[in-house]
């Protein structure tokens, strides 16, 4: 009996230490180091940043050449990092280019547009199970609201208006965007002006909506599970 307990205890310790290990190693394979000879968009970003900060004088070509190598060394030297000319995780973080590291992991963090990110997360919370058109439509409603005098003027203002969206009230907006999800694409289309709702500022799910008031709106369109109205 006592032995059994001990075994369980040891097992737990091993499990926990494993967890913490996978925590620190988990991001490693996803961290691309940029080195001499590389040619890609990340090198372009690296050169741009090094040039902005005055370490790099050459052409911003996206090709990791000798000049870039020297610039990285110089940067590493002045930041007290190991000086070896390869832009590793620490160098990239010190340059404030965390986006490079996370590209491909959490897809939603790969682009720089904060409105796009927020809109994508709102669509993810509200309509991840909807057809593509319905996802664009939810994004369009949020954008239409920013242009309506009766609503806040910014995308964040509209999304976080108290009580405006169920997914914000119950925290579903923070759910991670799944690999292969179309919500980011939908957010981009909505921001680019595609509006399947024809200018609607409300939507609700007729199966779950209990507000009497919302039913007083005239339904303009039905897309997926949602009714859209002005």
């Amino acid at each position, binding site marked *: 009996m006592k032995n059994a307990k001990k075994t369980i205890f040891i097992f737990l310790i091993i499990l926990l230490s494993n967890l913490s290990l996978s925590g620190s190693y988990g991001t490693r394979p996803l961290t691309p180091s940029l080195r001499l000879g590389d040619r890609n968009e990340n090198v*372009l970003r690296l050169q741009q940043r090094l040039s902005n900060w005055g370490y790099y004088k050459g052409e911003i070509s996206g090709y990791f050449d000798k000049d870039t190598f020297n610039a990285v060394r110089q940067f590493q030297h002045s930041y007290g990092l190991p000086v070896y000319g390869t832009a590793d995780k620490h160098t990239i973080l010190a340059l404030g280019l965390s986006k490079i590291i996370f590209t491909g992991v959490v897809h939603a963090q790969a682009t720089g547009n904060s409105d796009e990110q927020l809109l994508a997360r709102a669509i993810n919370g509200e309509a991840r199970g909807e057809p593509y058109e319905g996802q664009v439509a939810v994004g369009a409603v949020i954008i239409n609201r920013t242009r309506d005098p*009766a609503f806040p003027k910014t995308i964040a203002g509209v999304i976080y208006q108290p009580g405006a*969206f169920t997914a914000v009230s119950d925290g579903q907006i923070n759910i991670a965007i799944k690999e292969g999800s179309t919500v980011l694409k939908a957010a981009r289309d909505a921001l680019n002006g595609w509006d399947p709702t024809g200018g609607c500022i409300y939507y609700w799910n007729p199966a779950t909506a209990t507000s009497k008031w919302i039913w007083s709106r005239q339904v*303009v369109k039905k897309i997926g599970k949602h009714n859209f109205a002005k």
Partner: protein
Amino acid sequence: MGIREKLLDFKRRLQDRKMYSIVIVIIAVISIWGINQYRHSASLKQELNNNYNRAFYDLLGYVNNVEVLLVKALIASTPEKTAGTLQEAWRQANMAQTNLGQLPVSQHILAKTSKFLTQVGDLAYSLNNTTMAGNTITEKDYQTVEKLYGYSIELGKSLDDLQQQLSFKRIKWDELTRRGASIFRKTSADMPSQQFENIDKTFQEYPTLIYDGPFSDHLTTLEPKGITGNMLNADQGREKVTEFLGKDRVASLELTGQNDDGPIKTFTYTAAFKDNPEEQKAIVDITQKGGHVYWMLYNRPVPEKKITVDHAKELGRKFLEEKGFKNMADTYYTQEDNTAVINYAYKQDNVIIYPDLIKVKIALDNGEVLGIEAKGYLYSHRERSIPSPGITADEAKSKINERIEILSSGLAIIPTNFKTELFTYEFKGKMYGRDFLIYINAKTGKEENILLIIDTPNGILTM
């Protein structure tokens, strides 16, 4: 062993002293945990209430300031003073509106109040621009400001009243949030939200405001100029859509919606293609009048990039020409997920007409058109009678900050944010290593707009 015996066994064990102390410890631990949880939630609630109170008192302050500034604008005697006061009123009204949006009250309850604050700010800004341009404010504008001033007094009074109730704790914010956690949830008609409803009643007789600003009431009822032709029925619409998507490609086409509301009435069709999986559908909205394609979206993944954006621009232009949109010139573009969204503007007699805008989404694997969005074009397109410019290009150039290096120039019609158009010279210039577009009014020589061109690996944007 039955349940009864188990319970008895438990009771027997409880009498054991060791077991007794274990139970006491467990109860103590749970109580401590409970007290901590309670404290934590109480402090969160307090923090939330503080935040709501802050938003409310800020709102109150800003509304009072708007009221004072409006009356000052009415009595100011110099254009400078009027402009300055209006500018401040614009800022204060914006802040008031922002704070209103943070109160835990269902949006529809305070919709009219919110609209009032937006329009006061917007109108003040528009009048400020009028004054700054050296024009005087008309008698009609003064009357509008007078009316708005009256409303701001009323609003201030109602908010003061509410503030009294708040300080006597007759209204608690957390009660409002618990009930109104969502506009979709049931709203019971109890005291607190009624108080807010009364505020909105102030604006029952609120007039329709028309002025030169993005939130002016006339913009919602604007008639589209680019929609011509006869009314179609759903079958004629189907023919138009089949023709647009390509007769040979369409496997099935259904009418999935009809929008009879607003200035642009449409039919919505959903199409599946022969050469693609059934679940990848294209949605097309066409206008009931004339059967113009309003927008199209085809959601298919684009796994790789095989063609350049320049090639895509040419493909998009050809596509538009085929579909009857002639003389479209590409302007800026964005590129994400191996897909490019390219903006095309109409060109008439070498004048680029930005309001007549069509966006085309092109897959960079095979150049297929995945989307089109023609709202701008349908709202504003027509053959315009473009006047000859009142000033020469050199005269216009002399109006530009001379530190900017000018790279190219041309004529352009640009939209304002309240849907009117300006005839301008467009100059592309460089400064601080960045590219700018500068628009000089071709009649008056006034500098109308400056856009910053943002050239990123993902596209060219203007800000």
